[in-house]
């Protein structure tokens, strides 16, 4: 099979996901504003957790748990959006 451009691009995305442990752990813009302006305590926990906060559960090494969460998410999103787009093309309606 010939390597297509998007095979390489997907590999590059997976490399980006592996950089996730290097990310800044400071609060983001919205969290910072909520802290500074005193409404951060309004935030509620999610009613269920799957891979909460991009840390794969049950793995001691946090960098590894973050990378695993990133790789899973990257592959899921590629698969889901590729699949949705493919279905939309396949069941194409002719422009009116």
């Amino acid at each position, binding site marked *: 099979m010939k390597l297509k*451009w*998007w095979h390489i*691009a*997907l590999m*590059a*995305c*997976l490399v*980006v*996901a592996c950089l*996730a442990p*290097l*990310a*800044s*752990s*400071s*609060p*983001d*813009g*919205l969290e*910072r*504003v*909520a802290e*500074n*302006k*005193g*409404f951060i305590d*309004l*935030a*509620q926990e*999610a*009613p269920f*957790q*799957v*891979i*909460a*906060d*991009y840390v794969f559960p049950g793995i001691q090494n946090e960098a590894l748990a*973050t990378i695993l*969460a*990133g790789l899973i*998410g*990257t*592959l*899921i*999103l*590629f*698969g*889901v*959006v*590729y699949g*949705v*787009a493919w279905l*939309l*093309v396949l*069941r*194409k*309606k*002719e*422009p*009116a």
Partner: protein
Amino acid sequence: MHIPDGFLNIATVATTYVVSAGGVGNAVRIANKKLGEKQVPLMGILAAFIFAAQMLNFPIAGGTSGHLIGAALAAILLGPWAAVLIMSCVLIAQCLIFQDGGLLALGANIFNMGIVASFSGYYLYRMVTALLGDDRRSKLVGGFIAAWGSVFLASIVCAIELAVSGASPLQVVLPAMAGFHALIGIGEGLITGAVLSLVLATRTDLLELQRI
């Protein structure tokens, strides 16, 4: 800028859900008419890249971080409705799997980072490239301005939702959100410009696809 549950009141939650559901429905209908085989891999790649890049928070001033939204990049390459589809999938996955952004706030998050950011990014890019011309430099300048503006505008809409919900008065939350996101937008602009320049250097044809 993912809003957790608890920040928005029921009226805002309901309104943003209705508007976003309508927006996503329209995006599906338009994509169903216009999407071609050539765009399919790029749709998947952009979703994968936006998810991965959103994990990479970069520090800005004052112990605060920001991350890419990616809507402007997707809208520049594929058009605003395709970008709404991609951003919605990313935001839904982040909400359901990674507990980033609340379940009740999902409508607002799709509205801010999906619809507002995609359309503002798309039209800002169109405006700048119409004014400056169609060469490489104006495309990169357009990409930077579109990306910066998309983050800035999304943060203003987010601030209005927070104020309407009674989380914080508008005169307090609006300048704070706009101020931090004016800085985060610079990061968005630089990343968007870098990806566009990579596309221009390797696969110019990806910038010539029909916009959806």
